[in-house]
């Protein structure tokens, strides 16, 4: 954060020395040039990088998406919005959208709630604090593909451990790979396993930044543990909450590794029970159709969906947190 903040202070130019009316020396001109241009040069790396790896791919994807474009055959003729219409009409697109949202909701909501709860616990004076705090981050260290490989074994339909454990308490085996919702639940479990700890640490950091005297004042006013949590902690977490929810939205809607590794074929199940939008994009571009045009169209649709959802999230979170905080 400090590095981003530093140029801002530097960039406010000190007052330029008065120039004699007769004109300026070269040195003075250079100096003035330096004053005007240098700040932009200092901040330019970010913008150049952003142009190169952010904006350009975005624009180029849009360009590809309005052409017939093969993975190997390259650019063919211009087709306008055909790729978009084509993709929107496919059953797999509808399934992918359904699955993506379903997995996103099943994973993100419990994840954020659990992360706040765990962070609240870790924020207390417990023994071996550092141990617990590092402990929650541990799953984050495991590569997503490794997580997916392990979990897909645990969730195997006939021979998986989860079903065996369920059998012990008298629950019939659940068909984790055959049915839609169970498969989403299993994939959401992987996501939660990996990301809850990460979000917990972010919340924890934010909680520690809340001034302790606010709590003291609340306790003196007679507020209990729960009351302080809901009336002090949660409202003061607002900015962090927005950040976490937005990153969770982006990550959740772009989910790829976990569903791709969920079975041996990686195509989202025989009835596309857990095909997500990014997997669908990959299938269009690198699968049998090798159509970069359609894949790019999906990429743009996904981008727009994320922007819309992100904005909605932002507004809801702002409203909710504001009303909570000002009351």
């Amino acid at each position: 954060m400090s590095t981003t903040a530093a140029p801002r202070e530097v960039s406010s130019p000190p007052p330029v020395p008065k120039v004699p009316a007769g004109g300026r020396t070269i040195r003075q001109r250079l100096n003035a040039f330096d004053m005007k241009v240098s700040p932009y040069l200092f901040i330019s790396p970010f913008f150049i990088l952003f142009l190169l790896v952010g904006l350009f791919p975005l624009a180029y994807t849009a360009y590809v998406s309005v052409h017939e474009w093969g993975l190997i055959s390259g650019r063919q003729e211009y087709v306008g919005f055909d790729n978009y219409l084509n993709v929107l009409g496919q059953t797999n697109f509808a399934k992918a959208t359904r699955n993506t949202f379903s997995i996103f909701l099943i994973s993100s909501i419990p994840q954020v709630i659990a992360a706040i709860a765990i962070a609240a616990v870790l924020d207390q004076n417990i023994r071996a604090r550092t141990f617990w705090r590092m402990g929650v981050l541990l799953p984050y260290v495991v590569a997503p593909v490794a997580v997916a490989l392990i979990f897909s074994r645990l969730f195997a339909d006939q021979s998986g451990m989860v079903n065996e454990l369920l059998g012990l308490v008298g629950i019939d085996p659940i068909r984790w790979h055959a049915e839609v919702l169970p498969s989403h639940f299993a994939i959401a479990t992987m996501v939660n396993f990996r990301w809850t700890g990460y979000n917990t640490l972010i919340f924890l950091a934010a909680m520690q930044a809340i001034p302790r005297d606010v709590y003291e004042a609340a306790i003196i006013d007679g507020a209990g543990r729960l009351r302080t949590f809901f009336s002090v902690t949660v409202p003061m977490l607002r900015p962090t909450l927005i950040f976490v929810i937005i990153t969770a939205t982006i990550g959740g809607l772009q989910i790829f590794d976990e569903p791709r590794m969920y079975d041996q074929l990686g195509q989202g199940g025989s009835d596309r029970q857990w095909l997500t939008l990014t997997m669908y994009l990959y299938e269009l571009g690198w699968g049998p159709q090798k159509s970069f045009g359609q894949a790019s169209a999906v990429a743009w649709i996904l981008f727009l969906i994320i922007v819309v959802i992100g904005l909605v999230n932002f507004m809801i979170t702002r409203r909710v947190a504001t009303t909570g905080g000002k009351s």
Partner: protein
Amino acid sequence: MRTTRSRVMTVTAGMASLALFVAACGSNDGGDSSSAAGEGGGESSDEAVTLTVATFNEFGYEDLVTEYMELNPNITVELRKAATSNEARDNLNTRLAAGSGLADVEAIEVDWLPELTQYEGVFVDLSDPELEGRWLDWKEAQATTEDGQLVGYGTDIGPEAVCYRSDLFEAAGLPTDRDEVAELLGSTWDDYFAVGEEFIASSDVAWFDSAGAIYQGMINQVDNAYEETDGTPIPLAENTVARGVYDDVMAASVGQGLSANLAQWSEDWTNAFQTDGFATMLCPAWMLGVIEGNAAGVEGWDIADTFPGGGGNWGGSFLTVPTQGENLEESQKLAAWLTAPEQQIKAFVAKGTFPSQVEALDDPELLELTREFFNDAPAGQIMATRAEAVEVVPFKGPNYFAIQQLVSDAINRVDVDGTDDADDSWAKAENAFDELGLS
């Protein structure tokens, strides 16, 4: 509050730029590669040349490459190995699209060879009068394009036999000796299913592992499964041949209940080897190693020298020389040397890849090979007979892979997931075919 919000924005922006940066790094190592092609493109054989060979799974080339470098001191050969065939396919496609970064010699599996050979000028025409007749006819035909170019030198093949559990056969009152079993299983798929019915009547074990695998075996005996010989895809709704095979498989696996309802390579399938999940399975040569690994500790596996409906081949690979390379001539020489019978026998001994070369099939070293795990079955001899029994060379055009995938999904919906019945599932496949937009 003002300051906190702007700080959040700063953090968000920072994270965003970091994410972009990380993303850029990620795409880098996929995109531009260490194109380790040779430095000199000269004809002179004394010039130092570096060649790369890209394979997947186990081709058994490690020692061969060293041997080649000893024979040709000016040549350095580097071996790149991908873990799976799919990974190799993705890599190959991406680098073909990028126009650089391919190895000088690329291994390609037969199922996705046609989708690559449809693009002209991507691979060197390797036809060489001296090498005529080196491979089994049907193997050579698989890598020959319509205009007579040979784009790949055959490496291994997957002639199919039937593997069975003699202990489970015995418990069900069936013969256990491999010759008797071969006779019992008969010569047609109906025979095979009929014995299965007899078997499950006196056993709790399923007859075969997966309807998808049986379908693979059957469809590989059809000349034009999904495409006319000129490459035009046959609409699935009008494809009576594929539908017929599909119905037969469905009747046997769901109707007669012969299937263990497993998808090959799934976790449940792998575990079923340890829990007596099924009594027989179709086994291409390369499957023997898979069975041995998955069923470690299980006794009773054996190989019957028969295959329903005549011979059958499943899988196998080729070495190709992409035109991107800088030392096409040297690469071709290397590919030809690696796929010579003598070398392929060594690869077979090392990793069990069954040779596709005519001469190699009579090689005593191959014929005498037995496998202890399969009750000392003469695996080399059996597979050599099976290779000669292959009659049909199924036509696999550029769309084969895609359509095969649709049908195999349809089968898994019924056999494994049980989410649809056979007719509904086929209707879904027809719909998916239309959405592919091939015609």
